[in-house]
């Protein structure tokens, strides 16, 4: 009985010491373990399937759905590591895979005090500088993304590529047109795709981004999809 009390007292003492140490380590903002983020983000690097048309980024989402606001950025902080990671309009940044940061057990700190957040890996289709996408390339890119999703999640094996979603900045005009191939009996005029409002990624709290969804359907392989402003993201759609 006495031994039990001494043991419990020892653990209580340890709790006090740990609490003090943890407070001393407390960061200026909310934090996430770099090792935990690394574990999720490195899967895309390790994936051996085709992925040349894709890009992988780390997305920050606020837990309270209030948004991150302008100027949000992550900072990778360790004993010898200090790296600022600016976020784009969708809260994404390129995740640095660094052995030094891993070995130091570094933290990813958000420059928003009291804003709890989650990190999600987001794999999207890499945008082209000329804004012109062959339908066949978009189908291939979507298939590459689906291949990766199936690699990390066995429950996704029954899903199929259905289309792509172009996400645009709220500050610019959104526009996507379909350009039909030349050389037919009659050339069809360019066809503007409807712009709606929605979330960039499934589950995102901000549903106010201008988006254009193009479903593959029975579109001929030679059709071209043309964007007139650079999209923030091209998101593959699986159904």
């Amino acid at each position, binding site marked *: 009985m006495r031994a039990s009390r001494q043991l419990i007292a020892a653990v209580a003492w340890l709790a006090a010491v740990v609490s003090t*140490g943890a407070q001393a380590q407390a960061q200026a903002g909310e934090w996430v373990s770099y090792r935990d983020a690394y574990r999720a983000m490195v899967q895309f690097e390790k994936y051996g399937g085709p992925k040349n048309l894709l890009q992988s980024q780390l997305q920050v989402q606020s837990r309270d759905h209030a948004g991150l606001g302008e100027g949000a950025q992550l900072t990778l902080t360790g004993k010898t590591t200090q790296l600022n990671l600016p976020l784009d309009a969708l809260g994404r940044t390129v995740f640095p895979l660094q052995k030094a940061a891993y070995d130091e057990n570094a933290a990813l700190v958000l420059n928003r005090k009291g804003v709890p957040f989650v990190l999600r890996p987001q794999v999207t289709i890499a945008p082209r500088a000329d804004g012109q996408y062959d339908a066949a390339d978009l189908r291939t890119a979507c298939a590459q993304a689906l291949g990766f999703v199936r690699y990390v999640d066995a429950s996704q094996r029954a899903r199929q590529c259905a289309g792509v979603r172009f996400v645009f900045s709220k500050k610019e005009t959104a526009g996507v047109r379909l350009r039909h191939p030349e050389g037919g009996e009659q050339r069809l005029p360019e066809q503007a795709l409807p712009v709606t409002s929605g979330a960039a990624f499934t589950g995102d709290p901000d549903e106010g981004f201008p988006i254009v969804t193009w479903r593959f359907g029975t579109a001929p392989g030679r059709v071209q999809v043309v964007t007139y402003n650079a999209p923030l993201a091209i998101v593959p759609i699986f159904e």
Partner: protein
Amino acid sequence: MNKLLFLALSAACGMTWAQTPATNPMPDGSRDMYVGLGVQSAPRWDGTGSRKVSALPVLQVQWSNGLFISGMSAGMHLTDSPTFEYGPLVAVQPGRDRSGTGQVFDGVGSAGTTLIGPVPEPIDKRNLRGTGLDGMNKIGARLQGGVFANYYLTPQWRLTSSVLYGAGNDHDGARLDLGVQRLAFELGSQHRVSVSAGVSIVNRNYNQTYFGVSLEEAAHSRFSWYEAGGGLQEAHVGVRWNWALSPSWMLTSNLQAKGLLGNAAKSPLVERSTNLTVSTAFAYRF
């Protein structure tokens, strides 16, 4: 961000099944290690109502080559597939003397820690006279060897299995563990809770060692002769709660409920077929 993350640095006499943390891809030459100390309240041996409070060392290490140590288990991930894990596994089965099961270690899990539930009896307030294992032969700690295989239904749910051989008086006890785990994984949150459930199937030699009573033991103890056969031995459910206090410090807690089944439940050593094990520990991440 999916599965991953399981620290399970806990072990207890109530947790004899092997722990296999999720694969943990990391830079070549790196490792992820947790070391800690806590306290545990557990039955003195499987099936008794008598409890003991003891110190609980915590240890979990994973290396970039796939090797891992988690509590009383060690093994190696032979694949880095996100959906299928398998490899060799060794585990220490604690011994048992007249006072009960021996010292155990814990991991931090692949999923989380526990919400600590109420302990049904006041700790260490029982009169232990006449409730011990006096007259029963001592069972030494045993090193078991085997394999594990886990399959992820989704990044959050995994089916687990392991086979271990080498427990018991004659090192010929075999044990098959089958389970399902909900890996709690949420970046951004400092709290992660995971749940698990499973069953254990053992051979006759295993059950006879830990739940049987030989004629010699019957003559020297308060227990009557009992020959335990093999089969379904137990079902268990557990919850683990990991609270990251800082990037380096974690509070890991675990609650396990175990129900003995079949021949084990009928053993004269078993005073109650259902038992709880509760533990909490601080761990430092290196």
